[in-house]
């Protein structure tokens, strides 16, 4: 098939699909069922159903305005912060619908961390940035804070660069370092899931590749769900890929290798091979 050759050519030139073999029986940690999200009268997501496996990197790709960030923000209910936003359907975290009345979004976000598109460290010291989550969550007194800060910075591959200047301003770091600081801030309270919304799009290629390496390591401890508009990045670092297309529709969800080499849906193949988007 010529189209398949096409997509393989694309991948062989630039992309090495992550062929790590998993036992394939990972538990589902986040699962959407007929999830629709509206902003006022505009529908941003339409009937999305997907099961996201534990301790894997799941990439969400698709053209601009396809609802991929909306989907990400609906997992930790950051969409609640937008007053005109309305959610229908279910989104389950460890089997519990997070939109049930008895779920407090603050409690939910203490189990699901997030890293944003542009680095947003607080104007505080590096140490205080990383310790922030533990402090607001009331865990600072129960743990060895110094040790937890060190652990988070090591997991975020930033420790060696900042261990001698933990008191200095987080905003004095370079962009890539700031983003790793934000990753450390997100994982310091030891969440189960880490959401990443285009975490490398504001960074230079070298800084971006450091973060990509880091994301693969993070998946040994956390479930990582990453929104990216960079298909090569998705192919490089993710185990599973979800493709959203315009209209907020989830078109295909499968192993990353399958999505990039032999997608079922013609539209996905067109998108991957760059025919649109």
């Amino acid at each position, binding site marked *: 098939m010529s189209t398949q050759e096409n997509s393989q050519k694309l991948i062989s030139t630039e992309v090495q699909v992550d062929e790590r073999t998993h036992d394939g029986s990972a538990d589902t940690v986040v699962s959407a069922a007929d999830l629709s999200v509206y902003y006022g009268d505009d529908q941003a997501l339409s009937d999305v159903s997907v099961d996201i496996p534990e301790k894997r990197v799941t990439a969400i790709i698709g053209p601009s305005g396809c609802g991929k960030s909306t989907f990400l923000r609906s997992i930790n209910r950051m969409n609640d912060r937008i007053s005109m936003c309305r959610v229908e359907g279910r989104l389950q975290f460890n089997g519990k619908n997070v939109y049930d009345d008895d779920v407090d979004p603050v*409690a939910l976000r203490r189990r699901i961390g997030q890293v944003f598109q542009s680095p947003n460290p607080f104007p505080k010291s590096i140490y205080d940035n990383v310790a922030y989550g533990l402090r607001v969550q009331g865990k600072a007194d129960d743990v060895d804070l110094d040790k937890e800060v060190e652990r988070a910075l090591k997991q975020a591959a930033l420790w060696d660069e900042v261990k001698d200047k933990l008191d200095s301003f987080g905003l004095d770091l370079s962009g890539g370092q700031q983003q790793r600081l934000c990753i450390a801030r997100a994982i310091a309270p030891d969440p189960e899931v880490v959401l990443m919304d285009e975490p490398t799009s504001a960074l230079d290629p070298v800084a971006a590749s450091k973060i990509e390496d880091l994301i693969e390591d993070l998946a040994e401890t956390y479930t990582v769900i990453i929104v990216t508009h960079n298909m090569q990045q998705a192919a490089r670092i993710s185990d599973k890929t979800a493709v959203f297309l315009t209209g907020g529709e989830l078109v295909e969800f499968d192993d990353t290798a399958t999505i990039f080499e032999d997608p079922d849906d013609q539209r996905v193949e067109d998108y991957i091979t760059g025919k649109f988007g």
Partner: protein
Amino acid sequence: MSTERKGDVTGRSITDVDLSSEKFKNRLFYGLLLAASSFGVVMLVFLFADIFYEAAIGQREFGIELGRFLGNTGSQTPANAGFYSAIIASVWLMALTVVFILFLGISTALYLVEYAPDNRTTRLIEANLANLAGVPSVVYGILILALVVNGAGLGSVILAGAFALSALVVPIVIVASIESIRAVPDGMRDGSAATGATKWQTIRRVVLPQSLPGIMTGTILALARAVGETAPLLMVGALFTDTSVPGGPFDSFSSMPVQIYNWTFLPQREFLALAAMGIIVLLVVLLLMQAVAVYIRRKYERDVSLTGV
């Protein structure tokens, strides 16, 4: 017209153009603008010259010592009259006012920016905060006279004066606070919320620390306005001559501007000199407050410029 100009450009040498009338207009408007902007400075210079001249007369002809002036209480006798009780009353007024306006100003601004729904009512309130600053200050004096002095029966005490001054300048603090709270990037609030902070934790640990320099600057400028106010205090019933030193919020009081106002109305020449010296003290206090405001702004400028993520 346009064809003629075209001819100029293409047909004539660059040195042939007559610009004299345009040049004249240039100079004319430059002069006008300069004169207009000098007006304020010149007036200020006259004011200073007049005050220092009067104060100098006080030194030479009446032998007013600075120590006596700063140390004595008010008196009907020019030779005994001093500024001390007025200064202490102003300190009390400022101390109480700063507590009221910080609490009311920050609370109102936080509510409007962080909590209030974004609807027409909220926008109407915000738009009219600036209008409040245009209400004549004497109106606030009458309000507090009716509500606190007579209504609550507190009498003409420092607390009532502080209420009147607070009501007058709190819109300044609210507007300054709204601006600096709004200047905190939303990315900061998102980052905090996504880390599992409650709304109050986000405000307390992220929003307030970043907006505090702007809030403090606005507060000091509001206080500088309040310390020079006379009319609302007259309405509330400030004393023209306070022969005792006020010791607390429920004492009767004068204040620096009220004392100065009174001195300028008394017939003896020596009181004019005393008023001039009082004005100098008041100006020094105002300059110090402005200096503190500038210092705070400079000190935190670095942080603020870096938070514009």
